């Protein structure tokens, strides 16, 4: 088998999905982990690009990434609908922790931050946990999503899709409605949103930093925590929100 090309060039801001096939470590991937991908063979772009695992097919040893076209790296990837000859490093990072005793979970996604949360939602559902996924964004997103077995709430700042407002507004309502019943809360998205979520409630956040090595060797992806600098690639990308110095 060989890679399948999309044939068209995607524009900046477009959301794309690529299936990575024949990845031996696929069965080991857990939600919240990521991979780094070399985008091309030359020196531009130079560094590997990190992407969260969006969905896994363990039997077929494949997984999906979901990403927004930002620059050369993501543009390069967008050429592939399916790929089996890319240089991929992973699984990397710690992944989300799941508490099997807490039967309700809220997942808060900001824009493309949805990528790892769908994988998490699916795993939580398998564990018979009630999942609500809140997806907030500035405006209507063109993301192909199929929420099977869990509830998907969409909100946009301009009201062009779902409720008008912020993801944190919905979260606030939800937390209040729960009335202190135990909840697992997870969030992934822009730093400003994560900070706002962390102010509402303690949760697990998946962070991003510019990465060089992706394996904990360069000390490049530092994030300030109450216990000093931690590395997003190795100690994270998932952290307890209360450990982070926002």
């Amino acid at each position, binding site marked *: 088998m060989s890679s399948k090309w999309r044939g068209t060039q995607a524009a900046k801001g477009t959301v794309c999905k690529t299936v990575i096939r024949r990845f031996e470590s696929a069965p080991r991937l857990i939600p919240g982990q990521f991979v780094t991908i*070399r985008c091309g063979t030359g*020196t*531009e*772009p*130079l*560094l*590997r690009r990190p992407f969260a695992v969006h969905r896994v097919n363990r039997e077929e040893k494949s997984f999906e990434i979901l990403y927004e076209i930002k620059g050369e790296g993501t543009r390069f990837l967008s050429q592939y609908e399916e790929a089996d000859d890319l*240089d991929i*490093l992973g699984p990397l990072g710690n992944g989300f922790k799941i508490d099997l005793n807490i039967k309700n979970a809220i997942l808060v996604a900001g824009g493309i931050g949805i990528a790892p949360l769908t994988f998490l939602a699916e795993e939580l559902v398998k564990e018979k946990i009630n999942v609500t996924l809140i997806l907030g964004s500035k405006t209507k997103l063109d993301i192909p999503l199929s929420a099977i077995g869990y509830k998907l709430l969409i909100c946009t700042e301009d009201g062009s899709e779902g409720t008008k407002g912020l993801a944190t507004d919905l979260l606030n309502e939800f937390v209040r409605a729960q009335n202190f019943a135990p909840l697992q809360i997870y969030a992934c998205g822009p730093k400003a949103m994560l900070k706002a979520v962390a102010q509402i409630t303690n949760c697990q956040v998946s962070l991003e*930093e*510019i*990465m*060089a*090595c*992706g*394996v*904990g*060797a*360069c*000390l*490049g*992806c*530092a*994030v*300030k925590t109450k216990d*000093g*600098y931690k590395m997003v690639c*190795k100690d994270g990308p998932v952290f307890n929100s209360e450990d982070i110095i926002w």
Partner: protein
Amino acid sequence: MVTDLSIELAGIKLKNPVMAASGTFGYGKEYSEFCDLNQIGAIVTKSITLKPKEGNPPPRIAETPSGILNAIGLQSDGVEKFIAKALPFLEKFDVPVIASIAGGSKEEFAELAKILSKSKRIAGLELNISCPNVKKGGMLFGCDPDAAAEVTKAARKATKLPLIVKLSPNVTDITLIAKAVEKAGADALSLINTLLGMAIDINTKKPKLGNITGGLSGPAIRPIAIRMVWQTAQAVKIPIVGMGGIMTAEDAIEFFLAGASAVQVGTGNFVDPKCIIKIIEGLYKAGPDLLTRGDF
């Protein structure tokens, strides 16, 4: 293939002349999953400081055309923790470990050299007098022949271990520093450390690095590194470890032709964790006659 690429560098026996560069390979452990440490010529550790050091505020990395800027700021757990925690992991492997040390004064360099000399696992020391990302010491030592010589002398007195001094490219004439350091007792030189650079995000109108400036590495700087190795090879008698933008065996050969006796791979590890292994394989194929200084 029975080519023998082993060398003796400043008294350290290497299976081949390709090492992992300081700060880009952690303390070996991080990459051990992705490449066989036993195949590597030597591992130079992330620079070790005397006391724990927090490092610079993020962002610490920015990408530039064919290069990267870093401003890690010598984050380090300190030498005691290095010996207690990081070093034992390397016991399992048959690869020379060269400890890179960074002091804020010549006394600190001497102290570090003394402490590390006690460890059997350390095959040599690399003095980092060229880090552009710290305020005290760092590059300042590497930009002045006298200061560079002082630091070298102090370390020389404190240890019997082979001493490699790592030079800064941010100078008018690198051969002056090289000669001063040779005279002060260095057994070998390694060059180049990163070039001081900077990048600005035009959307936020702020520097891309938390530390404002950072060190430029990667293929972009290779022509500068090659030039400096070539110049220095003509100026000193001690062997030179060349580095700067090496990604392939061909790149490494360019350094050997310029006069390097060994090479280090830094940024290349980030791009491909198997980079060093592939380079070594490529050098075995190329054969030893391409690994000698060119005639020009």
